[in-house]
């Protein structure tokens, strides 16, 4: 019964992932509690707070909680989503209002980079495998290799220096300031601002898998079923696109889903280079200020995004390839 197997598989996967999520949050919370310092230290040192006020603030914002109690609060907040209703001691704003616009910015950046990167990766992988051994393959492969080797932030700096400062083709800041009523204007302007960060970040996505995809295609091309299809007289391109791709895509999709997390890591660097107001910057500043509620909530969002995409990819994979379900 495929239906029942699928349901059990999904339930076990989701439970497993919930456990992972709790472990991740616990890890981050404990790390932050182990580290020295609070956001109010600076004010105490400057003499803007008295000792009593300092102590009061510490207990008010939960910096004096018992580790176990604090952990319990965090896990409770995770499931009731009250983590987002907490107030940041540094910004004195509820987290939800801090996160909302930045989350949209970052999700736009990450998704655009992901789509662009995976399309490039799969298409170039197909192209190189199809033209194996030709001069065109070497040219494409070497240029893709160079693109892959460039550090994200360096690419961003090159873009900024040569295209924005010297060339003047693109704006220095990556977020749009214009609030026109003309929707088309707004969209064009937004693209204008976001195109450089997206190109930078996209190299972290599937271009990394270019070689994996190409090697997998080449492995498949020497397998028996391809020989059979060739003997039957199918065109090479048809074999590649219809039969080989079907074998290759499921594992590639799963790999890429797992690596969505890396895009969030890369987003911090990209956002720094381009001064882009996103989650990455927020997290970076929050960790720096020891603003624990914001760090926890932001990590929760990112972990949730990664876990949801991985789980969906795994379920899709199991759906496409029934052999996976039994081994789990």
């Amino acid at each position, binding site marked *: 019964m495929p239906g029942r197997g699928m349901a059990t598989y999904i339930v076990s996967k989701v439970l497993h992932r919930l456990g992972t999520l709790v472990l991740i949050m616990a890890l981050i919370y404990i790390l932050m509690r182990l580290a020295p310092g609070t956001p109010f230290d600076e004010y105490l040192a400057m003499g803007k707070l008295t000792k009593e006020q300092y102590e009061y603030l510490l207990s008010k914002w939960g910096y004096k909680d018992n580790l176990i109690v604090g952990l319990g609060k965090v896990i409770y907040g995770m499931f009731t989503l009250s983590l987002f209703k907490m107030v940041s001691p540094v910004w004195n704003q509820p987290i939800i209002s801090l996160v909302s616009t930045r989350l949209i910015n970052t999700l736009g950046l990450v998704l655009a980079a992901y789509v662009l990167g995976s399309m490039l990766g799969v298409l170039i992988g197909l192209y190189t495998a199809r033209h194996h051994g030709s001069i065109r393959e070497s040219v494409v492969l070497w240029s893709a290799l160079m693109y892959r080797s460039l550090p994200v932030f360096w690419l961003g700096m090159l873009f900024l220096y040569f295209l924005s400062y010297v060339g003047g083709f693109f704006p220095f800041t990556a977020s749009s300031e214009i609030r026109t009523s003309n929707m088309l204007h707004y969209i064009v302007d937004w693209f204008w601002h976001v195109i450089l960060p997206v190109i930078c970040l996209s190299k972290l996505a599937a271009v990394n898998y270019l070689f994996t995809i190409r090697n997998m295609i080449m492995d498949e091309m020497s397998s028996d079923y391809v020989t059979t299809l060739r003997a039957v007289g199918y065109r090479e391109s048809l074999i590649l696109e219809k039969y080989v791709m079907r074998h290759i895509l499921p594992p590639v999709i799963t790999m890429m889903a797992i690596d969505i997390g890396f895009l969030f890591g890369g987003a911090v660097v990209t956002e720094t280079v381009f001064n882009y107001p996103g989650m990455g910057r927020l997290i970076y500043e929050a*960790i720096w200020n020891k603003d624990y509620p914001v760090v926890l909530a932001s990590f929760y969002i990112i972990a949730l995004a990664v876990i949801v995409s991985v789980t969906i990819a795994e379920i899709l994979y199991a759906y496409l390839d029934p052999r996976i379900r039994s081994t789990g």
Partner: protein
Amino acid sequence: MYLGFVEGLKYVTHHRMGVVGLAILAFITVLAAFPQLFTPYTPTQIFEQTFTPPSPKHPCGLDYEGKDIWTQIVYGARASLIVGFLATILTIAIGGVIGVISGYYGGVVDSLMMFVSDALMLLPSLLLLIVFATLFREGFIVSKLIGAGRWTLWDTAVVIALISWPSTARIIRAQVMQLKNMPYVDAVKLLGASPSRIMFKHILPQTTPLLLSRITVLTPGFMVTAASLSFLGLGDPNTPDWGYVMYTAYANMLAVVMNHNWLWIVLPGLLLAITVMGFICVGEAIDDYLNPRRRW
């Protein structure tokens, strides 16, 4: 084992990408080992001017403290390579041990270790690294031991290893699960070998080729991760790596633009990119060698 290594080396030196990669790595190694050959100054030497444009005496100009930028770039090779290699060796050590134990014993041990590795794999490693480096500004394990009083390059390497072992552990685990059912393992068991002897003397050596090819995958990635951390301003200013040089360039972007000192931006990143490319090329050659189906 030894013969296989020689044969592999021969294959790599006759592989088109392998040769390019080895040449690049040789150049970078010379740069890291003998920086004195390439620059007359030392990275801590301070000159009187600041922010000068490129000149014959200072090919990349001077930075905000009056330090020669070209010298910093040359010496940065050493820092970048050290952090990359150290993190790789530690990662392979941790990943190898955990992979062998969890593959060999299976059961609860395996599930527990894979659960932890799952969690670590899902979180972006750069973000975790930032958490460590920012929270432990006053120094983490190694810096505490040597009394540096601040976050150093060694901490970066150790923390990278602490959060990056899962992928290596998984690969080794899969290999061990195949190996442990081989007849020779049964034979050793009958001879009365202890589990630790079987694991580390008889099974782990079999995974050496796999571990070697991991080096070429992990090292460039770690070099870029460490450089990203430095670029965010969390690096070690006393031993500047390429990321740190780029951080100072970015922090002084306006001076760079006004002096047309684009070498300050281009060179460190270019060297880092070339190094990464060298590792990828060698890695591809080793991969082709290990996978005979792909040797055309």
